């Protein structure tokens, strides 16, 4: 089912009698998602408003991510949270999955760039929340609640996003010859000093990459200071641009093996890295690990960490606290009292 308008979508959802999943390009589905009848939002397209001087863009959910990125690039702007571009990905899928790339360490996640939404609830009611201004504390922030909700609260039909200027200069520091502890330490040094690092990760080949962006003189100055701070323990090379970060961001898009996504504190990363199978990447300065693993492998998680299987079997660890599970279920029921909306918006 592929509604052409928000009203048509609302009518479709109201009329639904069996489970549905809301999808865009269906490029970010996790194991088990996208069941039931799919309601495909790819006909709801278009940038409805773009004010570069206010750093805001408002986009209908089915608009291809690539189209949004091209429109912003034409004005020398970007989505600061750096979602990975997958063929066919829509902006609605990006926000429903809260898809956030390496720049999350400095610019925040997708949910942090989301200013407002229009959505159709599980009852087929059209609502809006938030707006298109940076600061808004008028009522509850259902925008954040819907970010990453994977379509379970309703179908997001339009989203207002904060944009950011494209930095004039980008440079990547490549560090080689570091073990797990050395890699985490280098990323920590980069992120805890006054270097304004906008990405810190490790590629599958073991190279630690640190990104500096901004005005030319400033990037050069900070690169120099950062090299000094990192000391002699690693071989450091500075390269122009940030192609390495695209590699890091796009890791895991191809392949068959189970793919785990683990979020934890950087200070907890080292013991976990020691038990990881290859290949894997580290991002967000050590707070995100994504790893391919045999089907029956399970991470031994430190306190507070979370792991989800992005490919393979449907699996999330640890089990959700019962009170939080009750709140999650209650909120889902409040938006979707008939319980028709399955996970699937991606």
């Amino acid at each position, binding site marked *: 089912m592929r509604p052409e308008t928000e009203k048509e979508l609302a009518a479709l959802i109201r009329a639904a009698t069996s489970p549905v999943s809301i999808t865009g390009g269906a490029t970010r589905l996790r194991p088990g998602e996208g069941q039931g009848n799919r309601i495909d939002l790819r006909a709801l397209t278009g940038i409805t408003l773009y004010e*570069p*001087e*206010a750093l*805001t863009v408002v986009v209908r959910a089915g608009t291809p991510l690539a189209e949004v990125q091209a429109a912003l690039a034409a004005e020398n702007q970007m989505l600061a949270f750096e979602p990975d571009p997958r063929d066919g990905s829509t902006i609605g899928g990006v926000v429903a999955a*809260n898809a956030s790339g390496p720049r999350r360490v400095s610019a925040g*996640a997708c*949910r*942090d760039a989301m200013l407002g939404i229009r959505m159709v609830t599980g009852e087929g009611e059209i*609502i809006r929340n938030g*707006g*298109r*201004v*940076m*600061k*808004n*504390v*008028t*009522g*509850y*922030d*259902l925008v*954040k*609640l819907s*970010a*990453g*909700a994977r379509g379970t609260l309703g179908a997001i039909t339009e989203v207002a996003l904060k944009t950011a*200027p*494209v*930095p004039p200069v980008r440079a990547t520091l490549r560090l080689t010859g570091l073990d797990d502890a050395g890699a985490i330490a280098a990323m*920590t040094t980069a*992120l*805890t*000093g*006054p270097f*304004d690092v906008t990405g810190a990760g490790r590629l599958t080949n073991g190279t630690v990459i640190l990104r500096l962006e*901004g*005005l030319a*003189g*400033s990037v050069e*100055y*900070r690169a120099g200071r950062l090299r000094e701070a990192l000391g002699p323990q690693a071989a450091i090379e500075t390269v122009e641009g940030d192609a390495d970060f695209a590699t890091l961001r796009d890791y895991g898009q191809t392949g068959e093996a189970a793919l785990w996504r683990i*979020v*934890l*504190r950087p*200070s907890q990363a080292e013991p976990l890295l020691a038990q990881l199978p290859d290949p894997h990447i580290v991002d967000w300065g050590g707070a995100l690990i994504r790893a391919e693993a045999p089907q029956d492998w399970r991470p031994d998680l430190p306190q*507070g*960490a*979370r792991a989800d299987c992005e490919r393979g079997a449907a699996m999330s660890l640890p089990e*959700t*606290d019962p*009170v*939080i*599970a009750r*709140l*999650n279920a*209650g*909120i*889902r*029921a*409040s938006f979707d009292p008939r319980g028709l909306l399955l996970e699937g918006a991606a």
Partner: protein
Amino acid sequence: MEMPAPDMSVISRRDQIAARLTDALADPAAVITDPAETRAYECDALSAYRCPPLAVVLPSTTAEVAAVLRICHDERVPVVPRGAGTSLAGGSMPTADAVVIGLARMTDVLEINPQDRLIRVQTGRTNLAVTGAVAGQGFFYAPDPSSQLACAIGGNIAMNSGGAHCLKYGVTTNNLLGATVVLMDGAVVELGGPMGEGAGLDLLGVICGSEGQLGIVTEATLRILPTPEGARPVLIAFDSAETAGACVAAIIRSGILPVAIEYMDRPCIAATEDFCGAGYPDCEALLIVEVEGSAPEIDEQLRLIRDIAQGFAPLEFRESGSEDESRRIWLGRKSAFGAMGVISDYMCLDGTIPVSQLPHVLNRIGELSAKAGLRVANVFHAGDGNMHPLILYDANAPGDLERCEDLGADILRLCVEVGGCLTGEHGVGVEKRELMTAQYTPADLEAQMRVKDVFDPQWLLNPAKVFPLTVSAARRGQGGQDAA
């Protein structure tokens, strides 16, 4: 401003309820019922509206907050959470049948972890004391409401507070990684997690900014950032509001991201000059733009800002060359609210608008002000469109306050009309409750209230705030009583 009639069945049980609360707390002095002492809690910083509470409780731990909430839940007593009481929207204003739970004793730092770039605190700690705890290690906590010396982190979370520097660093919700929350039934949950990610829905995201209506946040994990090497402001003076507004847009458009862009108009400049003599130029509007980084970075950014500003023929472009000059540039802006208070009573609005609408909105405010016969001074965070029009009135002149409230409502409706919202950082509280229908449809409000139903089915936590009284009446279980 109306409040619902208090529940007399609660008030008649005051002694019994107070006794139960006292039993539940380690320190008997943590429960206050003496009317002379509860008066200190009869209002927050919106002091026009007052009402002494049934009792005040000052717990020291999460477990004590949970015990108090269990009792209040059991006794069906409304609860009003309170941080430092700096709310400008009446967010922690009590009712006669409510127990105020104050966080003033909960100020401990629980963990500082530079490697993970976070600090965990009890939420009665003040905003500035969070930065104070990590400054020695080269970090700061970014959201900086003007009240940061006094306001508590718990209140910041309740109101999703912002500040002058949020253009670059975001507001509270962008810097909150986790929270220990006590629900109305006494259940304690840990929300968020590493990078702010928790299990399933982003419950932390909806708690932040929910004005103490979903739970009481007793502990918070906050993102801390490395302190920049330095910061320097410039002051740019213009002969018209339009030109100043256009300059703001051009700076943002150019790709430079200053940490703050502040705006003041002539009435505001005149008042602050009389008050503190900052030495501001004679002009219609001025901007204070602050950039930060290392010395060479600051120079590079300021050079670009100067080039942009020259295109708008400013009356003056004053670049700070020293700590003292920086202080003087900020002096007038930071004194603005105090300075206005000297010349007149005033009401401070908090609407936000898309930056592109700035000249139009300033013009329209001028017209509305003339029509109402009340002067309006403008001072605000121009970079993010968060306006603070100050309406001057005479509290002793009969009818003035009402005219002032009407003009305020007209200005806020104007903000919504041009694509903005009723409140950018102060919150709805009791103050803007009845205006919510200007921004949201009944269905929009219903969706929000259903979320409260999940967290607090009996609507005991800070009820009669945020939502128009008639809209929330049935849920508060007092259908017809509000008219009284």
